[in-house]
């Protein structure tokens, strides 16, 4: 589903990704772990198409399409979703309006019909209930006045509503208390299916207690230095990132 080959990327003058190769198949959940500054968030931003991140070498394909040739909104319409480490506030635009505008923009790009008001609200009610987001919050400006945990729950809500094929979740667990971690994890687990894939980017192992990955990768100094099963995450938790092969 996602094929990344020898990816090099720079931010400003600095090269952050230095030959990253990664392959994620449909139905799989991968976790990328690594120390601060390893390039985890850079990878997320490069894949989502943020300006200012320049790919100097290598390739990234999503379902056979050249991801690097697409605008961020085209990547979204193709089925790629980025869960933000720091979700952004947009005052004056309600969460509902934002989501509906986004859903319809994606549908339009895919040549599909717009979602009806009734269908949209039905989906909103179902998704928001499981994440403990009430209607008053959804009518407020996007993430405005939300606590850190509420913002992350809102990301999970958007994930559920937009129904992408691939969820790229950047430090979704940071800033979450135990209860919120459980709620957000349940959201991710509901998302899992044979047709979809997830790439979890995380610094800590604790998210992986709730969302069990199929593959764990260790990212250090801009490349994947080790891959393994869930036991790799436990080992990292016990030993720390020091002593990894550079």
């Amino acid at each position, binding site marked *: 589903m996602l094929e990344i080959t020898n990816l090099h990327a720079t931010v400003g003058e600095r090269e952050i990704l230095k030959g990253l190769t990664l392959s994620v198949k449909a139905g799989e959940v991968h976790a990328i772990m690594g120390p601060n500054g390893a390039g985890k968030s850079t990878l997320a931003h490069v894949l*989502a198409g943020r300006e200012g991140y320049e790919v100097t070498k290598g390739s990234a394909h999503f379902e056979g399409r050249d991801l690097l040739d697409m*605008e*961020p909104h085209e990547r979204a319409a193709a089925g790629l979703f980025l869960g933000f480490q720091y979700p952004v506030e*947009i005052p004056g*635009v309600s969460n509902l309006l934002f989501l509906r*505008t986004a*859903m319809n*923009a994606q549908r339009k790009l895919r040549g599909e019909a717009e979602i009806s008001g009734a269908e949209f609200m039905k989906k909103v009610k179902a998704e928001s209930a499981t994440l403990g987001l009430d209607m008053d919050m959804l009518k407020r400006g*996007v993430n405005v006045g939300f606590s850190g945990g509420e913002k992350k729950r809102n990301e999970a809500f958007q994930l559920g509503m937009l129904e992408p094929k691939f969820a790229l979740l950047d430090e979704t667990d940071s800033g979450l208390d135990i209860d919120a971690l459980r709620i957000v994890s349940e959201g991710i687990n509901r998302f899992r299916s044979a047709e979809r894939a997830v790439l979890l980017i995380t610094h800590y192992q604790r998210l992986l207690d709730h969302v069990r990955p199929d593959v764990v990768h260790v990212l250090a100094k801009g490349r994947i230095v080790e891959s393994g099963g869930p036991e790799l995450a436990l080992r990292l938790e016990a030993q720390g990132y020091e002593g990894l092969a550079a």
Partner: protein
Amino acid sequence: MTATLPETRNAEAAAAVEELSSYKWGFATEIEQDFAPKGLSEDTVRFISAKKGEPEWMLEWRLKAYRLWLKMDAPDWAKLKIPPIDYQDAYYYAAPKAKPTLASLDELDPEIRRTYEKLGIPIEEQKVLAGVEGARKVAVDAVFDSVSVATTFREELKRAGVIFLSISEAIREYPDLVRRHLGSVVPVRDNYFACLNAAVFSDGTFVLVPKGVRCPMELSTYFRINAENTGQFERTLIVAEEGAYVSYLEGCTAPQRDENQLHAAVVELVAEADAEIKYSTVQNWYPGDKDGKGGIYNFVTKRALCRGARSKVSWTQVETGSAITWKYPSCVLMGEDSVGEFYSVAVTNNHQQADTGTKMIHMGKGSRSTIVAKGISAGRSDSTYRGLVRVGPSAEGARNFTQCDSLLIGDRCGAHTIPYIEVKNPSAQIEHEATTSKISEDQKFYAMSRGLSGEEAVALIVNGFCREVLQQLPMEFAVEAQKLLGISLEGSVG
């Protein structure tokens, strides 16, 4: 008196002057020539008045204004760069019919065509806007040039007792009413542009909602400038008698024009006790091209007199067009507990300049005012909010709340907030809040990562920024305004 013929620049105009001198002061009912000669003189004023069959007092009023105007100077305090205006190089009453420049819409600049389509303007109207040959025959419920007023629903309004006429008709049919109110809110000598308007106003609208009547529909008139080189001098007078209510919509879209066009309208509102007037404007006149060439000069005087106790006037404006905007819809809060409101969005892009705001003059006890002004600057444009809150000695317990927010797009534009506050009553409460922000890359990327294109993302963020103002507009107007905001800012974000 002998008329001094103005210096004319073309044969057509010379002929018109000739004709003018043959019927002068005769109040002939039919005048062959349907345009006034180019240039401004007492003759021009007389021509306009005669053409409209106005009574003597109206002509005198105009002439007095004209003579005053000659002695006045154009205001220079606004933060605007206004190129010198040659008042002799313009027509003041219609113009010789400009030859259509296009044989069909296919010849129209595709970019303009796209804008029309995005705005949802019907094909036939597009032809009129673009000046396509033969298009003038199309009947559109809109005001073109200076001859005016939508007559739709006139019957229903008549049943309710509402008078809704062109001001020219009103001068003929209700001279006493017009005479009582005309210039009572914006005096002839108020300012340079208002004075010019008093002398040469070509047409406009008169509304009177009688005591206790709630106007059964939103009144709307589309003003469109559509004749090359025609200075537009609209005059609007709206009177809401005791306990009356009226909502008036003024919307404008403009055709592409190369020549600078001066627009100096005057709008006067009078609200008696317990009356309420809601006045909404969406203004989208041609702003000039990307290099700042052409575009409308919009120098407008709008003022409301809240004369009676508990009277209320609410101005809402969405200003996206014009090359230069000089406009301060104001409220004189004379009545006890009277209320003035001003909700404004002003968008400037490319080389547009806007100096706009409001004046809230508190005279009545317990009078209250609210100002919410949102300025959005992009490109190399410059936008200034200029507002005055004045509390007179008699305005015991007056209150004002002002909020001015500026949003910058890019790093070559400017936004300025200039609030004037004068308080002569110690019991007054004045609050002023101001913010300046930029659309952040984070916001834009967040919205794009959810499926919005760059322009859609910016439009959404901007609409959010303006929400408090947009929600004051009637529904269908708000939708149009939202579209306009997006279109006005197209190409402004990298």
